[in-house]
């Protein structure tokens, strides 16, 4: 373990910058965005330097820690605010700061007409700080602080245009859904503390093998709940679609590339818990499989380009969660997919933002069409991302997604077939809805109003897109060639400690199968969307209707959670009013009567009050006198 | 534009050359810090300069010619007083420092040439402001001022000067009044200044001396 002194800057700089921008107010309007971008870039540079430093070290000394201060010291319970930069965190640090910086740059142009641009950048920096704290904390409690911090930043950014009530509601929805997950995390921390007497990763890791299976399952379930809340997994997935109310860079950074992957990080970080508890793993894969299909199905029916991408994100994270549930090798593939997904999904979101920018903030894809000519760069970068998410070789998605499908098939028995089938089906649907997005947006006939004048975005916007597109082309190959990432993460997640299970299918077969279903999906989509009506057809099948309504997730929430909750509340209110208030009122009336009598003491003279105090002291001293007699 | 009637014409007011007139007003700013420190040099170098002090009781510098000092009641050349008791000086006095009481001359007791003389003449030097208005008011030049300035004393009473304190001393050829006018003259001759202190005074002195004896 190496001791570093620079880690704190990763968090302190953006936090300071955020505070500065918020405190200075309008003074900082002119240069606030530049400062924020600079800070973000600086953190990236620090991250990169740390990465190189880490590469130059070997073995156990690769991980670096820095103790900032003694945070909590209650009796035997001690928590230090310590930062831990190991092989896992550095992936996240680079992703967060790298993509974050690109999106900062993108936002300079994207938000240039907004009055509150400075505030926006302050929130972005706040988010960067919180997210870095999340991935750098070396105990669950530290992680929890970052966890809440990103929740706050996400809330602030989704509701950035809170003058519109719908957006404000969306922000609230995200916040509440996240709170449910947070309760899960805090419960997990409490159980862990009760079980192991410590909340640091090391401590829990050391204690995990000796803990009772029930406790481990409970912790795992609670961690999964937390992950589901933050990563929009079933059953807490409903907020992500609404979160698209925020500015598009936010969607790209927080709701595609970084924050929503925090759940994956949490599970990966807690690998020692899940490794020790098969039940928890089963829950994880179940949730992952459900969500990946759920998101994909929703994605097929969305006309709003951002919501379609959001559904896709949900589905892709489903893949990752599924992967984490598959055991040690799965963690590495999950992280691999997370990184590649970070590139291509962020790129596509930025592309969507660019399209919206050119189309006067129109989000309905049915009003796009034939934009490839008008915005060639956007179209090309978006297309590269598209190829990546489809898993076409040699683009990034191929390396990551196919590995997951393969591992799912290989997990053995009926479970393996079920999971593999789900992932394959997911891949097919993914191909369908992504092709639908491409077709609706960039090809076909133009369907936009004459008022719209689609044009290519400024360089500040397309440059990040290009960078991300390059990432979505190359990252998969780079990270997986020679199992680079798997080896890199080995010390953290034991990814090579795989018990060689029976191989259900050869990798090449899996790849072929996957490519086949993908081709099927693509062709289906192209065939179905030869012509596109500008308004969505109403005479559609039950399935389409269900998909349009997000598979009734909100209705489900309403029926299962909200209505009974309201009933309960009403009942409680009635009880409160009649019974409790009745008692209280009686007490109050009695007290009032007594007070009226005692009011004469309250004569407004300070001296009388001080005399009463003196008498009180007299009584006190007298009591002591009696006691010590 | 019509010429502003209230603008002063430079010619009328004797303004300096047009150049100076057109120069902008310099801003009133304090001098630089180091320039201000020059003041310390001034006081320091003054220590070594010659002292202006006159060490008074030992050294007495003559006053200016027209210095307003103590008053003096003058006499004619033969010793008769010039004061005629008209009280004009007292009236002129802004500080009300002068008290005059006139009285008639008689042939037996004559102090001044004319009809009246100043019987009581007091100047209160606690009040006198040495303005000299009394001198201007005096019709006979009886009251003038000397250059004497050492008037300090240790009681209030001593600072009210009586007639005998104020009267000019008898010079050569003067005779202490009362004595008659020079023979063959009247007060107009005295007024015109034709009287000299020669014979008549001598004779009068002689007479006086004889009576004294």
């Amino acid at each position: 373990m190496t001791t570093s002194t620079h880690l704190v800057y990763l968090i302190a700089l953006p936090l300071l910058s955020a505070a500065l921008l918020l405190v200075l107010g309008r003074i900082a309007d002119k240069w606030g965005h530049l400062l924020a971008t600079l800070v973000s870039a600086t953190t990236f540079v620090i991250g990169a330097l740390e990465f190189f430093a880490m590469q130059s070290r070997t073995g156990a000394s690769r991980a670096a820690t820095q103790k900032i201060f003694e945070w909590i010291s209650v009796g035997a319970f001690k928590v230090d605010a310590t930062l831990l930069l190991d092989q896992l965190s550095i992936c996240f640090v680079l992703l967060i700061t790298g993509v974050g910086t690109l999106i900062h740059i993108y936002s300079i142009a994207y938000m240039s007409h907004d009055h509150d641009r400075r505030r926006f950048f302050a929130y972005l920096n706040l988010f960067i700080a919180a997210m870095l704290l999340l991935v750098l904390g070396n105990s669950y409690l530290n992680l929890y602080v970052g966890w809440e911090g990103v929740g706050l930043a996400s809330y602030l950014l989704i509701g950035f245009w809170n003058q519109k009530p719908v957006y404000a509601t969306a922000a609230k929805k995200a916040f509440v859904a996240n709170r449910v997950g947070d309760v899960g995390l805090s419960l997990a921390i409490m159980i862990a503390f009760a079980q192991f007497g410590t909340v640091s990763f090391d401590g829990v890791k050391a204690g995990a093998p000796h803990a009772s299976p029930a406790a481990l399952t409970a912790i795992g379930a609670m961690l999964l709940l937390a992950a589901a809340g933050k990563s929009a997994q079933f059953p807490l997935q409903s907020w992500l679609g609404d979160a698209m109310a925020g500015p598009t860079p936010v969607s790209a950074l927080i709701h595609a590339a970084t924050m929503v992957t925090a759940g994956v990080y949490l599970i990966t970080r807690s690998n020692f818990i899940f490794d020790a508890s098969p039940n928890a793993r089963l829950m994880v894969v179940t949730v992952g499989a459900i969500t990946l299909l759920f998101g994909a199905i929703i994605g097929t029916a969305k006309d709003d380009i951002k919501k379609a991408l959001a559904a896709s994100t949900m589905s892709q994270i489903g893949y990752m969660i599924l992967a984490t549930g598959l055991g040690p090798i799965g963690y590495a593939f999950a992280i691999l997919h997370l990184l590649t997904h970070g590139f291509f999904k962020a790129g596509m979101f930025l592309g969507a933002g660019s399209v919206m920018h050119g189309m006067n903030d129109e989000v309905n894809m049915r009003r796009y069409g034939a934009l490839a000519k008008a915005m060639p760069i956007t179209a090309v970068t978006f297309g590269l991302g598209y190829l990546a998410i489809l898993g076409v070789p040699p683009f990034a998605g191929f390396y990551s997604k196919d590995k997951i499908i393969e591992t799912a098939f290989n997990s053995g028995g009926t479970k393996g077939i079920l999971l593999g089938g789900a992932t394959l089906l997911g891949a097919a649907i993914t191909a369908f809805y992504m092709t639908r997005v491409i077709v609706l947006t960039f090809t076909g006939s133009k369907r936009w109003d004459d008022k719209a004048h689609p044009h290519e975005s400024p360089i500040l916007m397309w440059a990040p897109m290009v960078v991300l597109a390059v990432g979505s082309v190359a990252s998969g190959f780079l990270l997986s060639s020679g199992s680079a990432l798997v080896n890199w993460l080995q010390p953290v997640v034991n990814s090579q400690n795989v018990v060689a299970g029976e191989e259900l299918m050869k990798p090449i077969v899996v790849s072929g199968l996957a490519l086949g279903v993908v081709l099927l999906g693509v062709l289906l989509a192209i065939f179905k969307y030869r012509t596109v009506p500008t308004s969505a057809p109403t005479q559609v099948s039950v399935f389409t209707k269900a998909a349009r309504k997000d598979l009734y997730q909100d209705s489900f929430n309403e029926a299962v959670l909200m209505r009974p909750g309201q009933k309960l509340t009403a009942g409680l209110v009635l009880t409160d009013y009649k019974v409790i208030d009745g008692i209280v009122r009686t007490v109050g009336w009695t007290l009032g009567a007594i007070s009226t009598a005692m009011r004469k003491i309250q004569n407004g003279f300070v001296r009388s009050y001080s005399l009463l105090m003196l008498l009180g002291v007299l009584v006190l001293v007298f009591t002591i006198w009696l006691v010590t007699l | 534009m019509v010429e502003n009637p209230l603008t002063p014409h430079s010619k009328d007011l004797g303004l300096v050359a047009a150049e100076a007139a057109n120069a902008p007003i310099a801003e009133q700013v304090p001098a630089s810090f180091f320039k201000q420190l020059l003041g310390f040099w001034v006081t320091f170098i003054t220590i070594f300069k010659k002292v202006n002090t006159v060490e008074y009781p030992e050294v007495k510098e003559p006053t200016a010619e027209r210095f307003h000092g103590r008053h003096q009641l003058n006499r004619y050349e033969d010793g008769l007083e010039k004061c005629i008791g008209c009280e004009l000086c007292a009236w002129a006095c802004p500080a009300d420092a002068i008290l005059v009481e006139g009285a008639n001359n008689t042939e037996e007791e004559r102090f001044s040439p004319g009809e009246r003389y100043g019987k009581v003449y007091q100047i209160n030097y606690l009040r006198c402001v040495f303005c000299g208005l009394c001198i201007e008011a005096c019709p006979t030049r009886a009251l003038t001022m000397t250059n004497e300035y050492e008037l300090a004393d240790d009681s209030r009473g001593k600072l009210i000067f009586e007639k005998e304190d104020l009267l000019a001393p008898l010079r050569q050829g003067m005779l202490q009044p009362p004595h008659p006018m020079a023979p063959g003259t009247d007060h107009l001759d005295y007024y015109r200044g034709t009287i000299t202190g020669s014979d008549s005074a001598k004779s009068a002195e002689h007479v006086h001396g004889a009576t004294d004896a």
Partner: protein
Amino acid sequence: MDISNYLYLSAILFTIGAVGVTVRRNAIVVFMCVELMLNATNLAFVTFSRIHGNLAGQVASFFTMVVAACEVVVGLAIIVTIFRSRRSASVDDASLLKR
């Protein structure tokens, strides 16, 4: 000499201060009595410090002084403000709270 004599003195001074706070009407004198009480406790602190042979008592007394200074500054500012509006420094005149 019995060192607890200092403690007796402290108790007596404290008592006098307490009487002053309750009896005097002039707000400034009331404040001074509060200061006397604080000083009495300080004396006790210093004596305790000597009894126990460590400096914690002196440190406490040091902090008391600072806090007393703060209290006086704010208190006197309040008195001045009250005096400006009511032309009186009597604590009995500032009895608006009773209504």
